[in-house]
């Protein structure tokens, strides 16, 4: 372990005050499942850690207010797995949670930490991007909200000022007939780092054929962090879901995003997998829409 100080705040106000004064030399610690191994490998050498993990009363919640679903940043992956608010059409949350790490990791790893880690393998970033989620950033004097897409500006890079705390992710729960799914390919079932993962949310018109709205987001995009597949979404919107529209969306996906190659898998392989994931997700939503 490198040498660092730690500050354990009394409450949320105290944490924000600390960030106001010491934010520039501070790294925020929540569940620690990503940060602690990185500390150990000295990939991060912070001067001070601000431990927010004790602020559960303020920052650990899953609640619905009207059409908005709010997840406090300290919501654990196990909380997601056990929440009744994230079933049904939002089932991709449970699918992603099920494939996330292992029980010991799910019990401490947090949604806020997954988003703030901002790497191209995080499982919940595509899930939240597909729903066009927003994040809330608190500071000692107020708060601001911005789309998740704008928060993540690069690998492990956030548009968060040093005095701000990512306190919540939220999204509009779609109206009407909607379904969702999450696909992840890893080398094993447990503790797998995704080679490719993809989240899809699909809303259909009352005919259960025509695509009313669709969100597709995936990881491992070259030079980027997780990203939405806007062209593929455009090919589906307003169209009737069929083998030919699915195939058009696949071609759009293949041309708009360049998946990166590394020691885990080549870019070519990742692209092939992503195309299959897209088809499977669309087909499974279509089957679910028919009560399957």
């Amino acid at each position: 372990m490198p040498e660092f100080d730690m500050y354990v705040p009394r409450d949320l106000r105290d944490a924000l005050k600390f960030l106001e004064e010491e934010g520039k030399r501070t790294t925020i610690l929540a569940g620690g499942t990503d940060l602690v191994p990185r500390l150990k490998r000295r990939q991060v050498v912070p001067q001070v850690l601000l431990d927010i993990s004790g602020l559960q009363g303020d920052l650990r919640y899953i609640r619905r207010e009207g059409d908005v679903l709010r997840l406090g940043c300290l919501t654990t992956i196990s909380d997601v797995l056990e929440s009744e608010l994230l079933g049904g059409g939002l089932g991709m949350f449970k699918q992603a949670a099920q494939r996330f790490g292992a029980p010991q990791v799910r019990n401490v790893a947090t949604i806020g930490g997954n988003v703030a880690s901002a790497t191209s393998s995080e499982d919940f970033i595509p899930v939240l991007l597909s729903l066009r989620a927003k994040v809330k950033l608190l500071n000692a004097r107020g708060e601001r909200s911005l789309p998740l897409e704008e928060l993540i500006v690069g690998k492990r890079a956030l548009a968060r000022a040093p005095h701000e705390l990512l306190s919540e992710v939220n999204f509009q729960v779609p109206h009407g007939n909607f379904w969702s799914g999450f696909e992840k390919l890893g080398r094993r079932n447990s503790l797998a780092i995704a080679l490719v993962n993809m989240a899809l949310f699909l809303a259909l018109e009352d005919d259960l054929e025509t695509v009313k709205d669709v969100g597709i987001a995936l990881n491992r995009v070259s030079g980027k962090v997780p990203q939405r597949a806007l062209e593929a979404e455009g090919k589906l919107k307003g169209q009737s879901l069929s083998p030919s529209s699915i195939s058009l969306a696949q071609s759009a996906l293949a041309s708009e995003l360049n998946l990166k190659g590394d020691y885990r898998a080549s870019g070519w392989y990742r692209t092939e997998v992503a195309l299959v994931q897209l088809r499977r997700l669309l087909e499974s939503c279509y089957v679910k829409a028919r009560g399957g």
Partner: protein
Amino acid sequence: MSKHFVVMTINGEEKGFYVDSTDRLIDVLRERFGLKSVKEGCGTGDCGLCAVLLDGRLVNSCLVLAPQCGGKAVVTLEGLLQDPIMANLQAKFLKHNAAQCGFCTPAMLLAAKQILDRLPTPTREEVASAISGVLCRCTGYYPIIEAILDASREAEAAP
């Protein structure tokens, strides 16, 4: 490095002590309190051998920093020696040869206890998933899964 005074419950006893900002929970449990059932395998959260119950939830103690533990309750295998579910699990591990080198056994037993506390009669898949974060390099997992299922059947048969 900063010093922190932490009060926490360790195997049912309340303790207050100073820790360094860089101490991990596993260091405190093994070095200060001599709880050597908690093993360090990888130290990066992959092997799960340092698993303990923190406020009733299975967590990897190598990923928790000690100053984070104020007000929490931690239970290691040493704290469950009088627990009937644990006694039954240990007997079944012996019966099924579920411990070979033994290094993963304390963590396996805690993972098993956690699933039986939540689901008294789990399916084979639920047992496999419950122990999926603990690596065993000897047994191939089958004897461990058999032992846990055997222990759960006994719980089912009991009045």
